[in-house]
């Protein structure tokens, strides 16, 4: 492997990694606060991608306008999902999985019926490449990394510095104790869901512009997203960042050496081993 190829692989891996992180922090927030594994999170990501696609193609928005709009629209959908689908099943593993699976099939079928099964490609964020001493790095991947870093930092600050963020931490540590302190658990759940959905929409839009959109893009994404949060430890945001970057790098560096299927086998193999050795993940605790 030449140095140039290695640099590109690492960049591709980091770009994929930050997209995984954006997807996974929502999953981990919803798990931490509502104790629900949100299997339909991949479909939220898919809807985000389509939302941006239609905003750009039909309404003539630029990518930078479409990105926050799509996050807003899909975030609002999060309120509906929390109130009507997940609130009744908070903390109940089996029924919540079934509801999430129902949503998964519902949203995917809606996308198939509404948007068709053919893949759609968006115009790239910024076409072209950056050449530094013989190494070419594509701009869209650099930007995906940048967006990922900015948003995750913002989320981190939100959680650390604001009252609502601290309330989220309290609920994730002990729901009953938090509600005894006067924290409105339902409201905090809704906030977690909205933030999670908005970030997933942005992740989907970024991935959709780097590759393309398809109604089935959520299914493989959700397995990756779950892998990331399990690797990092359920409910932990630093864990999601570490997990996302590790998996992203495996996905970036292994394919040129072996194949993309092998990259996934290696990635999941690593997680299985981590889970067996540290059942709570890298950053998990109990």
């Amino acid at each position, binding site marked *: 492997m030449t140095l140039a190829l290695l640099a590109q692989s690492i960049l591709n891996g980091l770009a994929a990694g930050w997209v995984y992180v954006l997807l996974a922090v929502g999953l981990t927030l919803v798990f931490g606060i509502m104790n629900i*594994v949100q*299997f339909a999170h991949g479909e939220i990501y898919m809807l985000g991608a389509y939302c941006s696609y239609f905003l750009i193609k039909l309404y003539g928005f630029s990518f930078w306008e479409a990105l926050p709009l799509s996050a807003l629209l899909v975030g609002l959908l999060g309120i509906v999902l929390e109130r009507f689908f997940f609130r*009744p099943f908070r903390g109940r*593993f*089996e*029924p919540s*999985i*079934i*509801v999430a*699976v*129902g949503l998964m*099939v*519902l949203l*995917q*079928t809606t996308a*198939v*019926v509404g948007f068709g099964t053919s893949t759609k490609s968006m115009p790239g964020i910024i076409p072209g490449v950056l050449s530094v001493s013989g190494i070419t790095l594509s701009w869209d991947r650099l930007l995906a990394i940048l967006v990922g870093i900015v948003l995750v930092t913002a989320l981190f600050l939100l959680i650390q510095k604001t009252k609502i963020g601290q309330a989220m931490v309290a609920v994730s540590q002990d729901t009953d104790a938090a509600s005894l302190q006067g924290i409105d658990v339902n409201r905090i759940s809704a906030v977690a869901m909205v933030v999670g959905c908005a970030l997933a929409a942005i992740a989907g839009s970024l991935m959709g512009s780097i590759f393309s959109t398809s109604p089935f893009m959520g*299914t493989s994404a*959700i*397995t990756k997203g*779950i*892998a990331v949060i*399990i690797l990092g430890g*359920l409910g932990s945001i630093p864990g999601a960042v570490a997990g996302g970057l590790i998996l992203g790098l495996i996905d970036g560096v292994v394919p040129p050496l072996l*194949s993309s*299927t*092998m990259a*996934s*086998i290696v990635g*999941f*193999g690593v*997680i*299985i081993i981590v*889970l*067996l050795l540290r*059942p*709570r993940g890298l950053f998990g605790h109990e």
Partner: protein
Amino acid sequence: MSKGARLVKPASYTALILLLFSIPLFVKGAYPLHVLIMVGINIILTSSLRTIATTGQISLAHAGFMAIGAYASALLMMKLGLPFWATFLIGGIAAALIALLVGYPFVRVRRVYFAMLTLFMGTVIRLTIMEWRDLTGGTSGLLGIPPPNLIVIPGLLNIAFDSKVPYYYFILVLVLISLLFLYRIDSSRVGRTLLAIQQGDFVAESVGINVTNFKVFAWCVGCFFAGIAGSFYAHYIRVLTPDSFGVMQAIYIVVYMVVGGRRRFSGAILGASIFTLIPEVFRGLKEYQPFVFVGLLFIVIFFLPEGLVSLPEKVRARIRKRRGISLGQS
């Protein structure tokens, strides 16, 4: 229980089994039989998943273990020319052996983490099949799998697997044997021990139950039947692609089990049957068809949280309540 009531149950079971055996006499046409055959496969998958779930662990690797059985049986018959009956059993045994191999480390991981661990295990199995192209045909699939060998009992029987009818009888017998076996486990001392483990590992452990062994046992038995279902599927469908054993398939088996009702043995059978049959009835809706599945799923999970098996109790309670109110008014 009166003597009459005691006889009703065996009598109704006998009647049901006779009815199931006579179906091909009045159901003509390949498609309805195909649907019933798929119902049979799903019943075996769901009931065996329930055996694992009685220890409080949900497996999302069931489609993966089905794939192991399917590919093992198909490949042994195609590449080594072993007879069907041998490969059919080896399919189940292969799945059980792999389950045993990973079982002890796996069962130490609990609840959500176990579910996720098995999700990744199932994914790794599917990806390995995709990657091992020389052996499995990769994503383009394993084609030309032979049907089961002729069943010949000289002068008496000569069954060739050339239409849906023999397959229907095959799966019917297979379902009955599997259910009998799984039911025996469920209603035995072992079954009660498994249930005790579900209610609390530590309590079970403290009364001297070797929780780990029992969990591994349930896991291996469950995976064995997933493998057997896979063996049958391979020689019935006769084309295997890794996509038939994806995450969604694994999740669907869990859905069948939960919407059927976890509490009772019949829940898995009911869930698998109804959730396979009803969407098929609406096949004409084409791409809109999954909405039927979703609608059914939401109705059950919101209105029958204990699953379909709780419907009679619910209805009875409702009637009693109404009668109570009307009596109160008069």
